[in-house]
Structures are given as C-alpha cells and as structure tokens.
C-alpha cells in the first residue's frame, strides 16, 4: 500500500464541543488519493466532508485513525512541521476567500512566500506572475474589497499556488459566486490539474461543480457512501 500520495485509514473525528448524542463527524473513513487526481467531495451539510477536508489539510487533527502523507504518518509532526507542510505542500482556497482585507492583492499572494522565507523582490515577481496567470495583472495593487467575488477568489487561488503546492484544497470555492464566475473558476482548476498535474481536493454540494472532477467521493453521516469516477450527467442527458 506504500507510495500513495494521501492515505487515510479508519479516520475518526469527534468534536469535543458537540452536543451529547451527536454522531461523530468522521466515522472510520479509509481511502487513498494519488498524485494528479482531481477529486470532488460531496455530501449534505453535517456529512463530514468539511471535517475530512480540514483533517487532510492539517488544519484540524483526527481523534482516531491514521493519516499518511507521501507515506509518512503526520500524527507525529510538531506544530511547526505542520505549518511547514501547509506552507510548502498545500494550497488552500476557501469559500469566504479569506484574504487579508488591509493589504493589496499582490501582498496577499506573496504571504505564503513571506513564511517560506523568499526575499522581497522574488515575492513581488512571483506574485505578479501568478496574478497574471489568473488574469488579474491590472489589479495587483488593488485592495481585496475593491475586487469582485470572482476576482477575490482568483487572488486566493494565486495565493494557494505561491509555493508550488502538490495539493490544492478547495472548500466550496464557488459557494459565494454566480454561475458564470463559478464556471470560470472551475475551468481554471481543470486546466491547472491537467497542465501542472497538481492534485485537487474539492469540497462542494453542487452537482454541476463536481462534474469538473475526475473522481467523486460522497459522504453521509461521517461515512464514505460512494467513491468512484464521476458519472458525467451532461453526457447522460
């Protein structure tokens, strides 16, 4: 079984603050994800899909089970090592964008490089390059609140790409966007996955959005109820 990019076994998560009687957020989830996959995670709210995403993204820790990243168990990592993985291996895209409001688009994109220790000139060069790639070159020095939702999400994607990640974790990235913009964002993810081979883990509750992925994992009540290739509904119509 060694050699898979991400591998979780019997992953369980119980929230301490949860009301008694509430079922665990994750109940023994076991699966693997390979490099270059584009995976959509679906399920109703409360199904555990976001918890799964946070655990995989090392933003949260599981209460039981094992999580190996590149064959290495992450449970023994210190908080500094976890920060290092989030900084170098992962890139996050959130539903609410999570940009820092008071600094410019380019400075937001450069932020992961601040923590990876890149020199200032290099940070500036790379952030402009990335903004150009997401089609926002003219907005490099704009403040996030001057940008539309779709533009902010593209800044967030550029930020996620700053340190050449192996995995993009996108939690409802189109949840706050209109259909047209959502499609643009999803086209961008698809192209990115195809061209650079970056692994993408996408959480969504919209079937249309999940259609862009190659593999679909459905969660319900903390269990995986479906795991297989995306059935292309458009083709079926």
């Amino acid at each position, binding site marked *: 079984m060694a050699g898979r990019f991400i591998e979780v076994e019997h992953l369980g998560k119980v929230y301490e603050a949860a009301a008694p009687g509430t079922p665990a957020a994750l109940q023994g989830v076991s699966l693997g994800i390979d490099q270059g996959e584009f995976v959509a995670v679906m399920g109703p709210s409360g199904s555990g899909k976001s918890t799964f995403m*946070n655990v995989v*993204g*090392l*933003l*949260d*820790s599981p209460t039981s089970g094992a999580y190996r990243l590149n064959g290495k168990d992450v449970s023994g990592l210190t*908080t*500094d090592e976890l*920060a*290092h993985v*989030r*900084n*170098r291996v992962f890139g*996050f895209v*959130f539903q609410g964008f*999570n*940009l*820092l409001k*008071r*600094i410019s688009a380019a*400075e937001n994109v450069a*932020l*992961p490089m*601040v*923590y*990876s*220790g890149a020199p*200032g000139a290099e940070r500036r060069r790379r952030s402009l390059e990335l903004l150009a790639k997401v089609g926002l070159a003219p907005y490099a020095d704009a403040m996030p609140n001057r940008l539309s939702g779709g533009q902010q999400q593209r800044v967030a994607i550029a*930020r996620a790409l700053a*340190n050449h990640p192996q995995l993009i974790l996108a939690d409802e990235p189109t949840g706050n966007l209109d259909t047209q913009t959502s499609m643009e964002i999803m086209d961008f993810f698809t192209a990115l996955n195809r061209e650079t081979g970056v692994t993408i883990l996408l959480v969504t509750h919209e079937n249309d959005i999940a259609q862009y992925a190659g593999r679909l994992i459905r969660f319900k009540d903390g269990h995986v109820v479906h795991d297989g290739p995306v059935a292309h509904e458009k083709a079926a119509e």
Partner: protein
Amino acid sequence: MNFPSIISEAARSLGANKLRTGLTMLGMVIGVAAVVLMLAVGTGAQNQVNRAVSSMGSNLLVILSGSTSAGTIRMGSGNAPTLTTGDAEAIAKLPNVQAVAPTFPGGGQVAYGISNWGTQVLGVTPEYTSVRDWPVESGEPIGETDIRSATRVALLGATVVEKLFDTEDPVGKTIRIRGQPFQVVGVLKRKGQSLDGRDQDDSVLVPITTAQSKLFGNRFPGTVRFMFVQAVSQEATSAAENDIVLLLRQRHRIQPDADDDFTVRNLTQAAEAASATARILSLMLGAIGSISLVVGGIGIMNIMLVSVTERTREIGIRMAIGARQRDVLVQFLLEALMICIVGGLVGIAIGVAGAFAVGRFMQIEVAFSAWVMLVAFAVSAATGIFFGFWPARRAAALKPVEALRYE
C-alpha cells in the same frame, strides 16, 4: 521567516489599519502623558515649597525683644530695647547653640548714581549669612573688624543689585544708604521668596554696629530688635529654646512670677509644617500619577485585547498558509512593541510640552524627572506588550480551523 521580513510584515500590518493603530497608540500616549504631566507639576510645587523652607536656614529659633507700653497702648514684640548684643554673646556660649545672629533692622533709601530704591536694611553680625544659609556670591562677607569699627560697608541682595546696577559689578562701588556713603563689599546669592511670599533678596546687610550707631539713631546703644539662633541639631532646638528662656530671665532679672520680656519662636516647627505639607502634596500627586498609570494601563489593555482578539481570524488565515506559531507571536509582539515605543515617546513629548504650557500659563514651577518618565513608559509599555501578546498567543495556540471559524 527571516527577521527583516517579520519587521516589515509587522510594520505593514500597522500601516494597513491606521485607525486601529492610531487608537491603540492613543491609549499609550494618554497614559504616559498624564503621568508625566501630573508629576512634573507636583514635583515642581514640592520643589518650590522645599526651597522656601530651606531658604529660611535650618534649626532656627528667633528671639524677639519684648513689648513697650505707652500708657495703655501696647506696642507689640520687638519694640522694647530688652535684647542686647551682650545677651547674644551669652546665648552663643550655651551648649545646644551653634551660632547666634543678632539683627538690627531698619528701612531706608539706597542710591547709586541716578538710581535709588527703598529697601530693608539689616544690621547684622558675620554669623548672619551662615545662620540664614545665605552665602556671599561674589566679594567679601562682613568681618569681625567691620563690627568692631562700625565700618560703612554693605552686602547687597540680588534684587537690590538689579534695581541699582545695570551691568556693572557692584563690588567695590560706593552706594548711599540714607544719604551716607557705604562701600559694597559683596553680593549675596539669590535666595528667592520666603514662606510667606516676601522677596528676601530685597535687602541690604550692613554691620550691626554701623546700623545701631550710624544709620538708625538709637536711644539705647547695644540693643538689638531680634536675633536668629541656630541650634546644633534639629533635636536640640527644644532644649536650646528652654536654655535660652532660662538664661535670658536670669540675665534680665525677671521675677519667677513675672512675664518674659522677650519671645522665643521655633522656626523649625514652621519648617516642619511646610515640609509635611509638601510631602503630603507629593504623595497625593504620586497617588494621582499612579491612578493615571493604572487607568492608562487599563485603556491600553482594553484596546490591545479587543484589537488582537478581533484578529483571531487573520491569525487563522496566516497559520493556514504556513505561518508557524512563532511567526505569529513575533509579529504581534513587534506590533505591540512598535506601538508602545512610538506611543510612549509621543506621550512623554506631550507630557513635557503640556507641563511647560501649564507652568507658563499658571506661573508655577514644573520639574521633570527621568525616573518618572522611565517608570510611566515601562509600566505602560509592559501593559501594552503583554496584552498585545497574550491574546495573540491564545489565538496562535488554537488549531487553524478554530481560528478561521472566529467571526
């Protein structure tokens, strides 16, 4: 993350939210400025009182001659010619007495060239300047030979020098006192106001014998109006007082049931009362200063707590994209440090400027102490840094997902 980029990150973060930075700094500025201003005014007032007290001379008793009566009109202390230079010499031999300065005061017009000035003229002995703690600044003091020969020499107070002389050095010049020529042998050091607000420098000192015999015609040769007695120590003043009363009653042959024909006043008591007042004043201002410091500290604490707690989500974002706990802590520590240093310096500047303005406006003395500024600065900065750091530490200890969920 290297250090220069942490500093620039902290500076960028402060510059990015100018209102928050400004308000936080304001807490620091007000706290420090209030303490510096308050204590500058307080210390100034205390200094003023202390100087007036010490300008009196230390461990002093004053002996006034008795009163005369003309029929039923009683003239008050100092009018009867009951004290003599002989009494002064006898008192000087008492064990608890350090020195005696018999004084014969009068008033008169003094003149130099075309200037003239009405002032107090005191006939004194050489002991006067040491007993009153009033040194000669330039020239010579009055000597024993001046007393013996009743020479026409004078020591001028600083105010008299100002009124009579422009830029000339008065020492060696000849002035006229009540029309008689006197040579100025020296100038007294400026002494300032007495406790009751009189200008003590508006005086001319001449030998007591000259005052008695030549300046103010006296029907009773050898008498003095009052004398200052300096006890050997603060503790000895009461004993000296008793000794003097006994000695003078004996010398004046006063019957056991008769009243004294002189009055002894203990100036140490007055000085102690004034010092106690000054001490209470300074304690009170110290208390007000401490309260300002506490209030300022609470202000700093509140705004720091609120502004940093409010940034929990920002901390979550930074951690999600790879900031280590240490990176977050150093950044918030630096931000707090920068705010406190700039705010503290501005606070000191405003406090000093404010104290000068108050001093100028209300015509009072202000005094600054580096120690006060340091304490005000250190306490406020410590408060600011702690309450800037502590909530940041709490937020950085959360799991990123919890910090991100903070609204």
